[in-house]
């Protein structure tokens, strides 16, 4: 039996059998026949067996991991994005009705915004009760009646739809504050078209690319005034945001820089990008805003925001920068508006509202309140209560009595919404195909004077086991073409993106992220090499205490402990912990997580191949978790190392811009630091044999074993090793080589002059190396090599200083914004320091890393 046939049988039986939920099925009609959009696909889809779906699901998971697609629920950790391999398929007839309704809705919502932040006729005439708007957190008073009115505050909006029992689509909510999901929708499409290529080709569906071109064009045209070459940026809350992936995807697909609040500065009422060093400021004309309005300006809005730009609201009010969407658009993310939209549509557009919303009653209206309270008392409570602000967690866990108290206390803050059954579609949940409820997120864009819905969308799949509905996965949405010759997205005329200019922007925060990418990548690599060497020694000798091997193992373990502490006595457990425990500072998992965070901050500037590294690492970790044997430790560590080396390969292909040089600088500096730590292992003498074993390990960990063998024919002596690792001009693993590279990278950065502090510090260290005499260094005194110890002890703090100086010069953008009151208020200030007392200037102020 194939999955589709099983599904048809099962759903027909449930239609006949239990009538518990009258649910529209997206694939099967009540009579057991396939619905229109699936009929042409039946011959292909019908062949899929359960085994095929297991494979498809694995492929989907792997592709998503390779692309680094993630999502974090509010307050939860980042998780891999979930995608169901079976798409939601809609026929052109169903779609065209939706499309007209969605276009009208976007136009209406725009008109509502213009009215609410301007004439307020909807409120004054009682068409929308005032508290629905003024008591909503998204209502942004700071932009009510500004001197410069934005005629199109709504450029891009999302609307969520679900079917009622009769199969009619109903609106369940709008997302206008900062609509997310378009990036996920596109990623879903990429993956599904790869895992189901035949079906995808056969289906004849609307491709999505032209929609991105239109979005790009719409954003460029959003700029105020007549600018030849407007600058558009995507404002993100940062890599820890729930939808960071989506934001970075949009930014990199559109070719607009992804910026954080601290990357921008307001000067004289205009918005600029900060530039590293002393470069000129570059003006920003349009901001695609993914930060909620309340957090965008600590001066005019929430003072505790670290995500915003002081003065931004003033720039918006003066019409000097366009926000997409407008700052007050969050007021539309408001179920309290739903009951009043039909009248608002008549009032503002003079036409009936086409798309019906789910039945909703505002509790601020006495009739609405009575209706909701009655419904709540009924068995099975057909109505759910939501706060108009949509803070979903607010009512979670509320007892019935608490709920009643809250509603009666402040009825205007709540609505009651009739539950919709939703429609169901075959979904692969928990390794089983079953019918799961789905909803559809749609997108509309103002392009060329009219709103155009994306022909497609993002479907959400719910799990109804347990207490309530929870999202478990997503689906690609296929809208089939009426005629195969139809242009994709109905957009035959948009300019393809290749014709558009795209200049990368390097703000100090981006340089900082690249710097740490370099450092964490090198840190991970070096740690893995040391771990592999140590593991191999341990495998050989751990059963023979007191042998030469055991003594050298102790030395190597000491270096590891210096880097990442020691957690377990048992060696195998210790190695696993070093690889897997992400709460272990200095361990592999910790460094990988930090590397990923740094990369996420500059995701818009990276090749998509970058994320394969993490797919590889994730699979290596899974394999390690699945296999308890020690050979797996080496195998997984090796695979993780492969992932990191692949990353070096990807970054080698980057354009040679300041970001790349900063990455190189970070990598070389880290290499120097790791090398100095590693060489400490060779400072202690424990007898010739042990020393030789240790030096062998040091060479391997510094990836110089092969070079050394070729040069010294396997004759390992401290002098040769130190020469190769400290002074060799051709060995990329030597201190001299890495420092020389570091200097070259620094010289290429925009703030460098040839004599800046980091450059000077590197030069100083290099000339110290010129003075070195290997014979002196290897000289033995007492238990060890005192000259070598002294040298390493003098280099380590110099490297730290170089790191601080680099951050100070190239990265530091000054202190973070604070409100007047966040600076401690005292009765009197201490006396001024005497002029000329410059002692404190010597201290670099290191940023937390």
């Amino acid at each position, binding site marked *: 039996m194939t999955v589709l046939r099983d599904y048809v049988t099962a759903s027909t039986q449930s239609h006949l059998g239990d009538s518990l939920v009258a649910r529209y099925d997206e694939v099967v009609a009540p009579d057991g026949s396939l619905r229109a959009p699936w009929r042409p696909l039946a011959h292909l889809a019908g062949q899929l067996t359960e085994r095929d779906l297991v494979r498809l699901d694995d492929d989907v998971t792997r592709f998503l991991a390779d692309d680094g697609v993630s999502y974090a629920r509010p307050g939860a950790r980042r998780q891999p994005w979930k995608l169901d391999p079976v798409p939601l398929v809609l026929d052109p007839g169903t779609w065209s009705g939706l499309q007209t309704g969605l276009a009208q809705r976007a136009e209406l919502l725009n008109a509502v915004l213009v009215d609410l932040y301007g004439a307020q006729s909807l*409120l*004054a005439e*009682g068409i929308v*009760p*005032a*508290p629905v708007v*003024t*008591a909503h957190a998204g209502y942004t*008073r*700071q932009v*009510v*009646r*500004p*001197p410069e009115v934005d005629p199109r505050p709504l450029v891009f909006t999302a609307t969520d739809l679900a079917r009622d029992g009769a199969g009619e689509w109903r609106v369940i909510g709008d997302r206008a504050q900062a609509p997310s999901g378009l990036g996920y929708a596109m990623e879903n499409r990429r993956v599904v078209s790869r895992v189901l290529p035949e079906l995808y080709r056969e289906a004849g569906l609307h491709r999505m690319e032209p929609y991105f071109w239109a979005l790009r064009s719409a954003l460029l045209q959003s700029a105020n005034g007549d600018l030849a070459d407007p600058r558009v940026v995507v404002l993100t809350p940062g890599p820890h945001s729930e939808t960071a992936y989506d934001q970075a995807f949009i930014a990199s697909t559109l070719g607009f820089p992804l910026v954080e609040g601290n990357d921008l*500065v*307001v*000067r*004289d*009422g205009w918005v600029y990008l900060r530039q590293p060093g002393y470069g000129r400021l570059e003006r920003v004309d349009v901001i695609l805003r993914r930060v909620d309005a309340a957090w965008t300006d*600590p*001066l*005019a809005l929430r*003072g*505790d925001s670290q995500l915003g730009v*002081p*003065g931004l609201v*003033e720039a918006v*009010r*003066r019409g000097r920068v366009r926000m997409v969407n407008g700052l007050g658009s969050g007021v539309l993310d408001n179920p309290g508006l739903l009951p009043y939209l039909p009248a608002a549509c008549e009032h503002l557009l003079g036409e009936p509202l086409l798309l019906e919303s789910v039945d909703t009653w505002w509790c*601020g209206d006495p009739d609405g309140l009575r209706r909701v309270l009655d419904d709540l008392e009924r068995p099975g409570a057909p109505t759910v209560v939501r706060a108009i602000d949509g803070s979903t967690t607010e009512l979670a866990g509320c007892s019935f009595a608490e709920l009643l108290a809250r509603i009666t206390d*402040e009825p*205007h803050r709540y609505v009651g919404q009739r539950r919709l059954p939703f429609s169901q579609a075959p979904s692969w949940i928990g390794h089983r195909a079953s019918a799961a409820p789905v909803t559809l997120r749609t997108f509309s864009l103002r392009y060329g004077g009219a709103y155009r819905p994306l022909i497609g969308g993002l479907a959400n799949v719910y799990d109804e086991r347990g207490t309530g509905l929870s999202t478990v996965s997503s689906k690609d949405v296929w809208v089939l073409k009426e005629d195969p010759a139809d242009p994709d997205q109905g957009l035959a005329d948009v300019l393809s993106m290749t014709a558009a200019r795209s200049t990368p922007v390097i703000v100090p925060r981006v340089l900082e992220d690249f710097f740490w990418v370099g450092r964490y990548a090198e840190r991970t690599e070096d740690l893995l090499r040391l771990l592999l060497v140590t593991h191999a020694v341990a495998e050989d000798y751990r059963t023979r205490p007191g042998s030469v091997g055991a003594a050298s193992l102790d030395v190597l373990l000491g270096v590891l402990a210096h880097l990442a502490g020691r957690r377990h006595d048992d060696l195998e457990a210790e190695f696993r912990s070093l690889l897997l425990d992400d709460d272990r500072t200095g361990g592999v998992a910790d460094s990988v997580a930090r590397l990923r965070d740094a990369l996420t901050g500059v995701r818009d500037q990276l090749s998509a191949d970058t994320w394969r590294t993490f797919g590889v690492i994730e699979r290596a970790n899974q394999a390690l978790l699945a296999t308890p044997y020690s050979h797996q430790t080496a195998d997984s560590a090796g695979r993780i190392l492969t992932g990191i080396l692949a990353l070096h390969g990807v970054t080698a292909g980057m354009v040679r811009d300041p970001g790349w040089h900063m990455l190189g600088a970070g990598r070389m500096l880290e290499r120097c630091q790791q090398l100095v730590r590693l060489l400490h292992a060779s400072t202690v003498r424990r007898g010739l044999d042990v020393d030789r074993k240790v030096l062998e390990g040091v060479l391997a960990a510094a990836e110089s074993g092969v070079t050394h063998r070729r040069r010294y024919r396997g004759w390992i002596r401290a002098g040769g090793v130190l020469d190769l690792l400290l002074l060799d001009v051709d060995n990329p693993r030597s201190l001299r080589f890495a420092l020389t590279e570091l200097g070259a990278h620094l010289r290429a950065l925009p703030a460098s002059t040839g004599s800046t502090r980091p450059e000077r510090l590197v030069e100083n260290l290099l000339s110290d190396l010129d003075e070195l005499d290997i014979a002196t260094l290897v000289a033995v005194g007492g238990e060890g090599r005192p000259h070598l110890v002294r040298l390493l002890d003098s280099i380590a703090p110099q490297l730290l200083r170089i790191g601080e100086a680099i951050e100070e010069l190239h990265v530091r953008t*000054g*202190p*973070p*914004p*604070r*409100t*007047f*009151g*966040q*600076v*401690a*208020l*005292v*009765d*009197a*200030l*201490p006396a001024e320091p005497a002029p000329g007392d410059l002692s404190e200037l010597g201290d670099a*102020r290191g940023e937390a890393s």
Partner: protein
Amino acid sequence: MLHRTTYSYDADVGNSYGQAYVRPRPLPFQHVDACAVTITPTPGDLATGIDCYGNQSTYFQVSQPHRQLVVEATSDVEVVAELHGQEALATPWERARPLLDPTIPGAWSAAEFAVESELVQHSAGAREYAASSLRPGRALAEAATDLMHRVYADFHYDPEATTVTSTIGDVLEKRAGVCQDFAHLMLAGLRAHGVAARYVSGYLATDPPPGKERIFGADASHAWLAVWLPTPTGPGEWLALDPTNDQWVGERYVTVAWGRDYGDVPPVKGVIFTDAEKSTLDVQVDVAPVAGEGHCARAGEPGRVVGQDPAGMGKFST
């Protein structure tokens, strides 16, 4: 009228963005002859705008490094006591609740002053406290005035009693606070019963003690509240009450701005980029009446200042 706010820091401030509500607003009962706001050091950007309530807000950016920032506002203002219609004053409070009766003219625009705002949380305590003044059928003006008398009698003026983070609950518990606390308390009590009322920021002219010379800067910025009285037509009237001094607001009061609570209209707030760790704040207010006599601050309690604090919730005494 002069209002000077001085911030001093223990290190350079590289960039300072500020917003000030220090320009008295023109009103039917308040004529503003002249008004000037001067910022030192000279700001690179200085602009005046009108906010959603019609208040004049001043925006400034100082981008040159400085250790001291002075915001100084001077104005000449003529004020007469606002008159209210008897009919409006006699409206029973139950018939002045915009959320319950949205068809009253003007109810739609008063509605946002009848719901909770960030600094005016409707605690059960505030609701209960106000309940005994809001007796059934009582005229709103009378009920609000009674509430004002009770706040004046029950609460002690004490700048040490409350801090930046104090809530209305704290004020109720301590039975003490400053003018801002008393205004917020009355707002919470009235709003919890559905009545619309707004927070008003401004100045009160005070006289030097008998036989003493006028001391510059002895006055303070002040705060009170105004209660919405519906009228048969038009948007309604607002009756302004000062619980700190137990009187209706009259010709000795200069109205600067109003909003839902202090957070909407702080005299000065700002965001700075600095490594400074300490700062001092000095506020001087001088309201010199051209003529007239009368009551100043509450007897025995000299200058009080409601101050400016970024988070919009601070208060400082001088």
